[in-house]
């Protein structure tokens, strides 16, 4: 096995046994990127010198690829947007500081949909990322660079962020494990905000065990983020040892199965996953999440509304692109933003401004927040009857470039991941199989209650065991 193929656990063991050093491991990842990144396009930039220097200073550390909206001091942080071209971070995000103190170093910056808005990474303003399993297909999004880097072995593991499915859907498309932590489990300080009531950073890895190790490093209270409670972080990696399906109550919600436009292979793989869980001693329980059909609508009000406010900071004043055409302050704002933002970001800013504007606020934003309460109650009720929900992660496997042209059709790809994001609960995507015709990877989603990451990782690990090795 080549060094770049290793996951976190195996890399740590190899370093501990003296089989190779952190520098050799980091160099192996760099060499692999030289060979493959031109084709896959997972990375936007890779400061090789800084990565090697960090590896020399931290001889046991494992390199981690970082989604390009997380600040690392001295590195670019563009959010894959032209508006931040040339921007260099003056500080480390809390997740980066946490990672460093747990034996990880940031290595390379991976592509994404601009400001995390999208489901295919086609909205990146700075580069194209291809699915390592079929270069004519998208890697998913918005953490498409992270997923392609993990799936294509261009890194040991990666950080992604999830607002409405941006870790889980690309993980499903690129055959990796992705965990969206409960809202508040991981600090958002230093992570460029898209929708502040939804954004979470999480691990994208080659195994559930790796996800448990990395999540343990990222999670915890941060006094720089008031939404992170002082809830202790369990030793997730120790907790999932020997995890089993025996006696686990798996909830099956009909709202996640009787769906128009679901690919038959996705349906087959998900149903087979359910059958395997049952054969291994899990109890399947029927549950209902009656407000699921409104989740997409709620999300496409709340997320753009928050984004329109968060992205107001990109005004050409203190950092980022400033238009050379501006004559006064008004045109400095309007032209800098017009030149810097791509079309999807502009659409969402307009949508968000519209739903927050005078006269419409109550009908859209106010009402959406109330329906969000109902969606959250659905989950609370379901978790009274089951330990975890199992569902498809995305309605289809990775699609082709330019296949989904209409924005609304693209949005519908996040059908299964959005409700849990709105509810603030935790969820994972675990590889479950490959389509028979196109040989594309498909993941299933597990969802558990808020701050039930231990339960989530246990059931994900148990599933990974019974699923066996995928070809």
């Amino acid at each position, binding site marked *: 096995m080549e060094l770049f193929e290793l996951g976190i656990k195996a890399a740590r063991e190899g370093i501990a046994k003296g089989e190779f050093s952190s520098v050799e491991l980091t160099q192996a990842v760099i060499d692999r990127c030289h060979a493959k990144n031109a084709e896959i396009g997972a990375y936007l930039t890779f400061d090789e010198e800084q990565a090697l220097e960090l590896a020399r200073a931290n001889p046991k550390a494992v390199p981690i690829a970082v989604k390009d909206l997380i600040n690392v001091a001295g590195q670019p942080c563009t959010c894959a947007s032209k508006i931040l071209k040339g921007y260099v971070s003056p500080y480390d995000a809390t997740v980066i500081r946490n990672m460093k103190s747990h034996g990880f170093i940031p290595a390379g910056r991976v592509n994404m949909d601009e400001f995390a808005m999208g489901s295919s990474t086609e909205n990146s303003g700075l580069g194209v990322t291809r699915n390592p399993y079929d270069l004519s297909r998208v890697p998913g999004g918005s953490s498409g660079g992270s997923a392609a880097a993990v799936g294509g072995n261009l890194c040991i593991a990666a950080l992604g962020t999830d607002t409405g499915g941006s870790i889980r859907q690309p993980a499903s498309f690129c055959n990796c494990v992705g965990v969206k932590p409960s809202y508040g489990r991981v600090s958002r300080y230093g992570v460029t905000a898209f929708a502040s009531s939804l954004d979470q950073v999480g691990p994208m890895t080659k195994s559930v065990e790796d996800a448990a190790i990395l999540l343990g490093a990222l999670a915890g209270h941060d006094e720089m983020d008031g939404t992170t409670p002082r809830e202790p972080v369990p030793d997730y990696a120790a907790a999932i040892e020997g995890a089993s399906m025996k006696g686990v109550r798996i909830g099956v919600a009909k709202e996640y199965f009787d769906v128009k436009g679901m690919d038959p292979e996705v349906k087959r793989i998900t149903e087979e996953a359910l059958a395997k869980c049952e054969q291994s001693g899990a109890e399947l329980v029927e549950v209902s999440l009656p407000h699921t059909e409104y989740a997409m609508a709620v999300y496409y009000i709340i997320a753009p509304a928050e984004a329109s406010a968060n992205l107001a900071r990109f005004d050409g004043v203190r950092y980022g692109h400033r238009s050379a055409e501006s004559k006064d302050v008004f045109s400095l704002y309007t032209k800098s933003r017009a030149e810097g933002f791509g079309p999807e970001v*502009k659409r969402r800013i307009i949508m968000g*401004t519209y*739903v927050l504007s005078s006269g419409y606020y109550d009908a859209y934003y106010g009402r959406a927040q109330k329906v969000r309460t109902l969606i959250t109650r659905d989950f609370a009720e379901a978790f009274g009857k089951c330990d975890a929900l199992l569902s498809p992660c995305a309605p289809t496997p990775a699609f082709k470039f330019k296949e989904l042209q209409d924005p609304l059709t693209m949005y519908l790809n996040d059908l299964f991941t959005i409700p849990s994001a709105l509810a603030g609960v935790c969820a994972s995507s675990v590889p479950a199989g490959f389509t028979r015709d196109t040989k594309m990877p498909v993941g299933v989603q597990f969802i558990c209650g808020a701050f039930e990451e231990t339960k989530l990782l246990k059931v994900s690990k148990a599933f990974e065991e019974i699923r066996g090795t995928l070809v």
Partner: protein
Amino acid sequence: MKIDVAYVAELARLELTDEEKTVFQPQLENIVKYVEKISEVDVEGVEPMMHGRTLVNAFREDVVRPSLDREAALANAPERVGDEFLLPKIVEGAES
């Protein structure tokens, strides 16, 4: 609901080309039409969910700590003069 794209874009401080206006108009109308689905839901007496979890005030000790260094804060400035960000004249008639 008809959305006045040009007006909303101005509120959002975004200059749109005529072509963008033509492309965005039907796309945004479609999205608005879709999200209006939530008007079907009975929300009588339901509390709005303002955030990702139920929040309580998170207090910390009010102590003086070093903040971002001035040079570091100015390092990404598109234009600067001394220790300040340089901007076009804001007040009419004032010396720039």
